[in-house]
């Protein structure tokens, strides 16, 4: 098999070069038929990786949960109830006391103070059953939300265009005319917020921050590495020195210092989120820039790059069309392996209180409240506050598996 390199035709006049440019990283073999492109081989290889396929499904479910969090969560993102802090998960029952099937229902939970130990004790009030209804509509002004594809539009634009939150449908809710009894299938946190709902809403931040940060980091790394490798000289020297200096500072501490820049400003979460993306990517671009630089250094001396130069292509065009696409497989693998790292780093930042700020939610921040409000003695009883950690674990594991799968898929030596 021929090595999968694009073969630009140097003899072609400049006008037709654009039209003839191979769209994919494919090669023409000797009988003129286009052979399989690198990406399609890699995709076939990837699909044979059993763990990576499972991970893909798991991540798909997680991202869908994040997208439809408003619908899946019984209460809105900012719902709090300070009378109801650290309520244990409501147990969903299906049969009544005699064992007859009555459908899902919950009992109300009542908080009492144990007069001997002065600890809060939660008791189940079995006097009345509250059935759980599916596909309920909650019409309250706070219960309305903007459904999934529309809520990707920034809120300022939505307001300017007059898009108002209209959706009222929720997956489930408890049937209580007085609206005093709530269903918290994973309990409540330090402010009485629903942990289940907050995990779903937190997924929006925790799961997207890794993708965005790695995209920005790789973009910076590719531009810097491309410039350094292609132009060389003083530009190369400056960029390399900068990478070296950033590398010389231990990354956790640099990260915390950078986050401390905007922490005292008390910015709204819509500003903090992109700032954290920037901070994370500022830490991560150095390694990418180094590798891209090395690859560009060797690629620019290859025949096709020299030929493109001889044909009169501009520097920018050579970098963009001939050099950077060659680094694609490296970039895909690095990106999929960087995402779990960034998810973990965001969790650490938020856990230290230097990342996402309340009332916005992320999984790391939820564990921060676990650490700071529960107190050491409460950790054992209030196990449900650890649930966000399980989600961090699962999503990082899944992304790692996908990264491993992609690395094997793009590596010609590990073809099956």
């Amino acid at each position, binding site marked *: 098999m021929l090595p999968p390199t694009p073969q630009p035709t140097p003899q072609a006049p400049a006008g037709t070069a654009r039209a003839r440019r191979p769209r994919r990283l494919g090669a023409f073999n000797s009988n003129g038929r286009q052979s399989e492109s690198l990406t399609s081989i890699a995709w076939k290889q990837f699909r044979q990786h059993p763990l990576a396929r499972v991970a893909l499904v798991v991540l798909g479910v997680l991202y869908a949960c994040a997208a439809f969090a408003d619908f899946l969560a019984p209460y809105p993102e900012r719902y709090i109830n300070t009378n109801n802090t650290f309520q244990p998960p409501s147990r969903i029952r299906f049969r009544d006391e005699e064992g007859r099937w009555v459908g899902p229902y919950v009992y109300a939970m009542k908080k009492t103070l144990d007069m001997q130990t002065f600890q809060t004790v939660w008791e189940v009030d079995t006097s009345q059953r509250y059935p759980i209804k599916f596909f309920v509509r909650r019409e309250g002004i706070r219960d309305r939300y903007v459904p999934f594809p529309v809520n990707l539009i920034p809120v300022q634009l939505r307001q300017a265009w007059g898009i108002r939150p209209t959706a009222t449908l929720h997956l489930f809710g408890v049937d209580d005319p007085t609206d005093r009894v709530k269903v918290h299938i994973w309990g409540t946190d330090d402010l009485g917020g629903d942990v289940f709902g907050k995990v779903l809403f937190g997924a929006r931040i925790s799961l997207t921050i890794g993708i965005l940060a790695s995209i920005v980091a790789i973009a910076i790394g590719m531009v810097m590495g491309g410039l350094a490798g292609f132009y060389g000289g003083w530009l190369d020297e400056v960029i390399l*020195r*900068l990478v*070296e*200096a*950033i*590398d*010389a*500072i*231990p990354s*956790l*501490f*640099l990260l*915390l*210092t*950078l986050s*401390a*820049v*905007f*922490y*005292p*400003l008390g910015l709204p979460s819509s500003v903090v989120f992109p700032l954290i993306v920037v901070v994370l990517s500022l830490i991560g671009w150095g390694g990418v820039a180094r590798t891209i630089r090395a690859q560009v250094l060797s690629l620019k001396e290859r025949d096709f790059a020299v030929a493109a130069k001889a044909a009169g292509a501009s520097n920018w065009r050579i970098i963009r069309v001939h050099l950077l696409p060659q680094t694609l497989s490296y970039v895909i693998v690095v990106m999929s392996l960087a995402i*779990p790292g960034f998810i*973990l780093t965001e*969790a*650490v930042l938020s*856990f*230290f209180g*230097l990342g996402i700020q309340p009332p916005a939610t992320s999984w790391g921040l939820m*564990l921060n409240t*676990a*650490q700071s409000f529960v107190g*050491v*003695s409460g*950790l*054992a009883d209030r*196990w449900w506050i*650890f649930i966000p*950690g399980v989600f*961090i*674990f*699962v999503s*990082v*594991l899944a992304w*790692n*598996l996908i990264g491993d799968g992609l690395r094997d898929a793009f590596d010609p030596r590990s073809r099956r």
Partner: protein
Amino acid sequence: MTVFIIRRLINLVPTFLLATFLAWFVIEIAPGDFASQFAFDQVDPGKAERIREVLGLNQPWPIRYLYWLRNVVLNLDFGTSMVSKGDVTSLIYPRMVNSFWLLLPSTILTFLIAIPIGVYSATRKYSIGDRFLTVFSLIGLAVPNFFLALLVLAFAVWFYQANGWFLIPTGGMTSSNYSSLTAWQQLLDRGWHLIAPLLIVTLSSLATTSRIMRGEMLEVLSQDYIRTAKAKGLSERVVTYKHAFRNAIVVIVATIGGVLPGLISGAGTVEFVMRWPGITPLFISSIFAQDVYVVMALLTVLTVFLMIGNLISDLALALVDPRIRY
């Protein structure tokens, strides 16, 4: 070789200057300073300004950087902490020692366990043992350290509530009655407090190092000279340990230098959760208080260690790998 070392050492100077300048710049662009917390003092409205005057915070920041740099380079004087009003060096030194006593056993343990695991997994690729270790290391990579530490704390509390005595302590480095213990008991007490954070820190680094070792070993085992060695009738044992292992260990040797800054830069979140009085908790509290000199001192010392560590890595690599010549 000597020329190479000298050139590398000279090269460290601009990197050091740029790194400290960047760090100082980042700290300075943060709004407010140490005196800001007194700005709304009702009793004494001029307090913030006076503090700025005394600490010299009203000077422009490049000038303060130069002053700081002069003191560090000429006198190794990292300044005075604004919070504790004590000498920064005497503030951070015990913290580094504490971090060191957590990280040194952890690092030794990591290498002692990870290298045999890597060799085992590579020589028995896709066996049940290898698959088990693969799953184990995947889990080790994906569990956030601080989450694991929280779980361990919860377990410690649960065990105490169930049985009435502590199997593992709930954080800290020593018990509250530490000073009244005899020397032997003090040593035992320290060891007892060390167990939980040590295991947590080791678990995550174990996963990484054993994966690297396995990958390198597999790489070497697929080389032609290994096949030749097997073909000429050498025993499996000799091939694995004399031919493959010696070449695969080169990469691990290259990470030896990275261990040096790791030894004092602390265990990050684990120290924070387990209340281990190491570097990270001090750094976090100094960041929140905007105690510039403590933050800078920690960053500077760690940066120097990191740079020297990288240099040692390169030298160690050249020492064990005859193919590398400078």
